[in-house]
């Protein structure tokens, strides 16, 4: 990306933070908290997710057969099914069916994808969005910023101002009730006048041809009931085998999305329906003495949209995207999304974490490339997805493809000069951060000179111009003596015979070259608990290149790390990891990067440092061997990936056991996310996200607490934004 493009991107983000950020943040916060509460009420949340996932896996596997089955079922019921190759094909068909008549629509992201409203209006038909948020956007001529609540970026005041300007009501509208009542009446007349009702479908059952629509307002029901012709538009992936299969989705979708146990209406239509119709026409309004017409002559058309989906189905990396039920959990649980919303974190149609998969599949990689970097791989969405899609992985794979897309394989000169496994087209900024290991090695070898040079004004402005490293960020200061060198000179202090356990402490690149003090503290704490420590000279885990979409380099790093740690694992030693993002690599991504046996061996023996201390204390080690916290008040920020692995409670438990008074943050991510906060185009967003964490650590209860955080990035962010200097929690346990 050129410096100009970076500046433009930063400006766009800044504009959205200023204009839409507050509304998006407030609304996604409600959804996010609601989801945690609502899913906690389920006895069998994990089992339901597994069930939902299995149904989708099976459905996508058998999709061609299910499409045939649903076509037969709907034709038997008296309806028509049209499978459209792409948007143009769908629009041509729908335009012919609508034939210039008035249409009313309920919310459908798939209809946004094909932009059917434009096609219908061009053919002379009137189309009204009856979902209130879509109605607002139709009036404002804006695009959705959220896949479930499309006008989430607009405040009540803005909507009121818009309505008052456009409709000029006698009494200006102000409250949400007034706005809702006005829109209901206005759209009620449109519904009376309409002859065609258009809906989407959250699910379509192959066995009976039933559409399941998950809604709250009642407008979808009205659009279907009032009109003579029902056109439903759905992605072809929405087909599930049977009516019974709907149950886990019905229980999960509202909880996962807006945090409601269930939305007001889950409509199961098996069209054509026979409810009495209003029959369209122009009378409308109060005093309309029209009789309801018989509903037994309704037309029904199901338009199933391919538009790239069948190719996604053949793509081993993108296929999972088709399991998505568009609940928005990945958007609501995403710190970046919470702050900037879907107008930045979205492509042509879709927004949020999974949008990268959708956009790459239906609109192409260019659309995905617009926002894909906003996924930092923090993984907070992973446990929230009701069909267990590995959303960060999809973002990584697409980033890799984007990296390789342009001039990728030709630039052998550049390729020959870099230490990684990537082709020439990779953006230099990504390449810089992806090769952090090499950078850190050099930085350490030439420290402190390298630190002086790097921090100097001319170097910083050059780095900002050429690499997009924001000069407002302090750069890491490399230590001259690495942790590995320190330990090699020092040696282990617990004899093999007196050792309770033997561990290999993994020297992640940051701990090894930058934050050696936490590595040394970890060594001393383990030794105080009678553990014999070794530090094998293992390199960077692959997290740094992976986060830049440099999958081949990540894989090569992963293999080298495995080779370095395998002897210790084979000798029955435990691997202890300080940096949570690297433990998360071992636990999650290595499954995709290493041979199955290697992955299982390493994952099965790896522990986060505080998790390991917890285990030692639970198994006979004496907490009195560690310094007494003596009631010291501590504010702890766990790391995003650590929380995804459910490892936060160990740190809290150990600190409390050692006598500390602990309170924790509950933001999804600190906003730093490795290299993200260094990038000049994202610096301000990163700080905006970080401010939410700072707010939690500057309350009356927390302002005087010692701040600890597990992740390197979190420590850097907190260090930059707080006046207190934060540390890794293991340092509180270090008696030195």
């Amino acid at each position, binding site marked *: 990306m050129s410096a100009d493009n970076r500046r433009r991107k930063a400006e766009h983000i800044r504009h959205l933070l200023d204009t839409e950020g507050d509304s998006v943040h407030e609304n996604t916060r409600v959804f996010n908290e609601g989801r945690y509460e609502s899913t906690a009420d389920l006895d069998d949340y994990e089992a339901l997710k597994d069930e939902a996932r299995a149904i989708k896996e099976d459905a996508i596997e058998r999709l061609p057969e299910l499409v045939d089955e649903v076509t037969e079922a709907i034709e038997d019921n008296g309806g028509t099914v049209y499978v459209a190759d792409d948007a143009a094909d769908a629009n041509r068909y729908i335009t012919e069916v609508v034939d210039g008549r008035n249409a009313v629509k309920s919310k459908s992201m798939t209809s946004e994808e094909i932009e059917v409203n434009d096609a219908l209006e061009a053919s002379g038909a009137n189309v009204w969005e009856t979902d209130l948020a879509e109605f607002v956007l139709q009036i404002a001529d804006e695009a959705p910023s959220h896949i479930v609540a499309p006008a989430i970026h607009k405040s009540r005041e803005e909507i009121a101002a818009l309505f008052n300007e456009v409709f000029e009501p006698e009494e200006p509208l102000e409250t949400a009730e007034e706005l809702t009542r006005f829109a209901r009446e206005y759209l*009620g007349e449109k519904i009376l006048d309409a002859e065609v009702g258009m809906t989407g479908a959250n699910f379509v059952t192959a066995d009976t041809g039933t559409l399941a629509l998950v809604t709250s*307002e009642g407008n979808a*029901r009205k659009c279907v009931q009032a009109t003579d012709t029902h056109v439903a538009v759905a992605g072809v992936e929405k087909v599930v085998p049977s009516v019974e299969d709907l149950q886990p989705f*019905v229980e999960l979708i509202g909880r996962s999305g807006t945090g409601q146990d269930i939305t*007001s209406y889950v409509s199961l239509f098996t069209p054509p329906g*026979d*409810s009495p119709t209003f029959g369209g026409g122009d009378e409308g309004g109060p005093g*309309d003495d*029209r009789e309801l017409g018989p509903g037994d002559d309704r037309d029904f058309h199901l338009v199933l949209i391919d538009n790239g989906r069948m190719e996604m189905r053949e793509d081993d990396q993108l296929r999972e995207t088709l399991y998505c039920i568009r609940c928005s959990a990945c958007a609501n649980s995403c710190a970046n999304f919470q702050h900037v919303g879907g107008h930045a974190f979205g492509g042509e149609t879709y927004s949020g974490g999974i949008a990268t998969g959708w956009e790459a599949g239906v609109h192409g990689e260019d659309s995905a490339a617009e926002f894909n970097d906003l996924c930092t791989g923090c993984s907070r969405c992973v446990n929230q997805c009701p069909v267990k899609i590995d959303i960060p992985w999809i973002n990584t794979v697409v980033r890799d493809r984007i990296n390789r897309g342009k001039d990728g394989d030709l630039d052998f000169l550049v390729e020959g000069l870099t230490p990684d496994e990537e082709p020439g087209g990779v953006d230099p900024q990504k390449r810089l951060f992806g090769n952090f290991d090499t950078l850190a090695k050099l930085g350490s070898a030439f420290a402190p000179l390298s630190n002086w040079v790097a921090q100097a004004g001319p170097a910083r402005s050059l780095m900002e111009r050429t690499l997009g490293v924001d000069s407002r960020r302090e750069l890491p200061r490399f230590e001259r003596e690495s942790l590995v060198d320190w330990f090699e000179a020092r040696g282990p202090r617990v004899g093999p015979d007196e050792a309770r356990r033997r561990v290999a402490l993994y020297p992640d690149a940051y701990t090894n070259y930058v934050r050696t003090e936490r590595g040394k503290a970890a060594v001393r704490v383990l030794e105080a608990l009678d553990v014999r420590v070794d530090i094998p000279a293992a390199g960077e885990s692959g997290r740094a290149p992976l986060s830049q979409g440099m999958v081949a380099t990540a894989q090569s790093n992963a293999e080298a790390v495995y080779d370095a740690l395998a002897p210790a694992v084979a000798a029955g030693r435990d691997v202890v990891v300080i940096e949570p993002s690297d433990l998360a690599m071992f636990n999650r991504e290595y499954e995709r990067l290493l041979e199955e046996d290697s992955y299982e061996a390493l994952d099965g023996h790896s522990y986060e440092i505080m998790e390991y201390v917890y285990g030692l204390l639970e198994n006979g080690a004496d907490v009195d061997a560690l310094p007494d916290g003596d009631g010291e008040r501590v504010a702890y920020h766990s790391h995003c990936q650590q929380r995804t692995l459910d490892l936060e409670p160990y740190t809290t438990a150990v600190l409390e056991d050692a006598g500390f008074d602990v309170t924790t943050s509950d933001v999804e991510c600190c906003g730093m996310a490795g290299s993200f906060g260094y990038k000049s185009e994202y610096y301000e967003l990163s700080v905006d996200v970080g401010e939410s964490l700072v707010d939690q650590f500057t309350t009356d209860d927390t302002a005087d607490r010692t701040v600890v955080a597990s992740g390197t990035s979190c420590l850097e962010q907190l260090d930059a934004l707080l006046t207190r200097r934060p540390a890794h929690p293991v340092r509180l346990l270090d008696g030195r």
Partner: protein
Amino acid sequence: MSAEPIATFESSLDEIDVDLVRTTADRFESALAPLLDAPAVGAPLPFENVSLPDAVETDPTVAELEAAATGVTAAGYGIADYGSVVIQGGADGEEPVSLYADEHVAVIAASDVLPDMDATFDRLAEDIRGGTGQAIVATGPSATADMGALVKGAHGPIDVTVVLLEDA
């Protein structure tokens, strides 16, 4: 039918602010009377010895539907875990009646209250295969948060009341 799903149904309805009126077939009319704000519309009820009073219009015009304060329909099932009612049927107007009036009164037989979503979908699947064209799992009144705050009563009813026929 054991008492358990009914008790759960009642507490689930309470959580979503839906009133439950318990009655029996012979006391139905007097139980319904205070719930009927005029003008009222309705769809014929399928329960034995239970019918709608004459004041309830069962063949409304479009204007009468739009003006209705109360709409009375049967519900095919109740779902105890969620406090949902399942509105089934079509040709008799269950859909517009339950949708346009300010308040929807759903009449349900105690024996049709099912414990959970699993049991409900087994029954719904059976019904759909048997030709029941439409089933709306309705939970509380219509609602929207699209106008900057949560509002009860969007395009559909503002209020819901459930009448439970204990002997049906």
